[in-house]
Every structure is written in structure tokens, then in C-alpha cells.
């Protein structure tokens, strides 16, 4: 998950991000079965809360959760300009602030290995 904002006190964000990305990936495969390149957005309608997911230039997805105080149409309008704005920014990957591909220091790997032994030691 890249980032989250808003009122999300009761939300397991990691689980949500994993399921939302899988949902969107599955919809991409459905699109290709129908001869489409990609479905650019998804909408799930609930009684109290709904969810709108939109593609950001194939590099990330934006998931918007909303309740009955707004409408899908309003969410779509706001999301469109937001996606355009996000698309102009470089998505995070294995690149540092100056754009070079970053390797972590060997000390970092050694420390990480110790943590793995501690965490996964029975």
C-alpha cells in the first residue's frame, strides 16, 4: 500500500489493499477475456458503504471508500482529476529520490537477517 488518508479507524488497511489490488487484477483479466485492454475503474455498491477503484496509468490503483452522504457520480468526478494528478508523479519503486536504482547497504541486510532469525525462530 502506498498511502492512505481519511477516516479509516475500523479498516485493516493491509488486508484491504491486498484484496483491492487482487480484485482489480482479476477485473483486468476479465477485461481481456472481453477483448478490452483494461477496465479503468470498478465499483462495488453496499447498503452503507461503497467502493470505487480506479487505475492510475497502470502503475497504481486508487480506492475510494464512501458512504451514503455522497454519490457515485460525485466520486467519479473528483477521482478523475485526482488520478490525472497522481499519474504525473513517479510511482514508488526501487528508485531513490534522484531516480537511481537503490541497493540497500550490506549492514542493512545483515541486520535484517538477524531479525528474520528472531521473528521466525520457533
Amino acid at each position: 500500500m502506498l498511502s492512505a488518508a481519511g477516516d479509516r479507524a475500523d479498516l485493516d488497511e493491509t488486508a484491504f489493499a491486498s484484496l483491492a489490488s487482487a480484485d482489480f487484477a482479476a477485473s483486468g483479466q476479465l477485461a481481456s477475456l472481453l477483448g478490452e485492454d483494461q477496465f479503468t475503474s470498478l465499483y462495488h455498491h453496499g447498503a452503507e458503504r461503497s467502493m470505487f477503484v480506479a487505475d492510475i496509468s497502470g502503475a497504481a490503483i486508487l480506492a475510494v471508500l464512501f458512504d451514503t452522504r455522497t454519490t457515485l457520480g460525485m466520486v467519479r468526478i473528483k477521482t478523475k482529476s485526482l488520478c490525472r494528478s497522481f499519474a504525473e508523479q513517479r510511482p514508488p519503486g526501487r528508485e531513490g529520490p534522484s531516480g537511481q536504482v537503490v541497493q540497500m547497504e550490506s549492514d542493512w541486510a545483515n541486520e535484517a537477517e538477524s531479525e528474520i532469525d528472531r521473528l521466525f525462530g520457533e
Partner: protein
Amino acid sequence: MSMINYASREINCKLVYYGPGLGGKTTNLEYVYNKVNPETRGKLISLATEQERTLFFDFLPVDLGSIRGFKTRFHLYTVPGQVYYNASRRLILKGVDGLVFVADSQAERMDANIAALENLYENLADYGYDRISCPSCCSGTSGTCPTPCRSTNCGISSTPWVCQEYEAVAVSGVGVFDTLKAVSKLVLKSLS
């Protein structure tokens, strides 16, 4: 490829458990879920059928903590083993950083092991991933066989698979953490 988020100083690595159906992939994750400190792991999500066969994937996030200022997290996934769910398997492989191939040690499942491995090669190739350079471990395991088994005895030694090998029994947990530790270290080494 591991995602390093400099803004939030996070590293997320994706580990995928792959293998033939009923080989013990989900059982591996359930064992990890039950044994690691609850404060370091998230919810185990299983998208399964009513018969408890994996339909899409299982997912378990495990937090390694902060290492030199970077919050490091492993995302453990399984794939559905049944042959007709290949589209789902291919989706789960997207962005994989490390692989655990869970081979079934029962003699009658040797062909299934080889078919699953060949299917893995094909799906990795679809994404342009190099199976040789992808950090990989293999564990010979079975949900019904109580005896640890070397994966070379599971029919895959005849294939050009390059990986570290572990004897395992998923139900009792033998070798589960050895395999997870090994693949985790390989993935982190690939970052440095």
C-alpha cells in the same frame, strides 16, 4: 520487485507459495500464522471454496519491524493448486520477490509436482521473470504424509529448478520456518 517506498520508508516483499493442489501451501501459511507473535502479523485472509480449497489466494502480512529506519514487511501469498485456476495463479505471481515451491511427497503426486513446476515456469515467463534469478526455496511436504521428504524425492529433481531444498511436513510445522527463513533471507540479500 520489492517495493521501497522512500516517502514512508517502507520495504514490502512478496513471497508466493506455489505447488500442486493439496500439497500444503495453505497449511504452511496457517502454521506461520499460528506460531508468529500476533503483534507482528496481520489477518490471514483466505479466499477459499466451501470445501476449503483455495479459490484465489491466501494472504498473510508479516512485519519484520524497522531495520535501519525502513519498516520491512513480508506479504505471504499462496496460489490455488487446482489446475483449472491457472489465471488466478498467474495473477498472484505478478510482482513476486521470492518463491516457495511446496512439493507433495506422495508417490502418486510426482507427476502433479512436475506439472505444477512447469506451469510455474510458464507463468513466470509470461511476466518476463527469470526463474533462475528469482529467490526460491523448495519444500517437500504433504498434508497427509507425516514423514519429512526431500523435494528431490518428489519428482522435480529431473527439472532444471535452481533452489534451496528443505524437508518439511506442513501439518506439524517441520521445516516450515526453515523454508520461510531461507527464502526471506534470499529476498533481502537481493536488495543489497
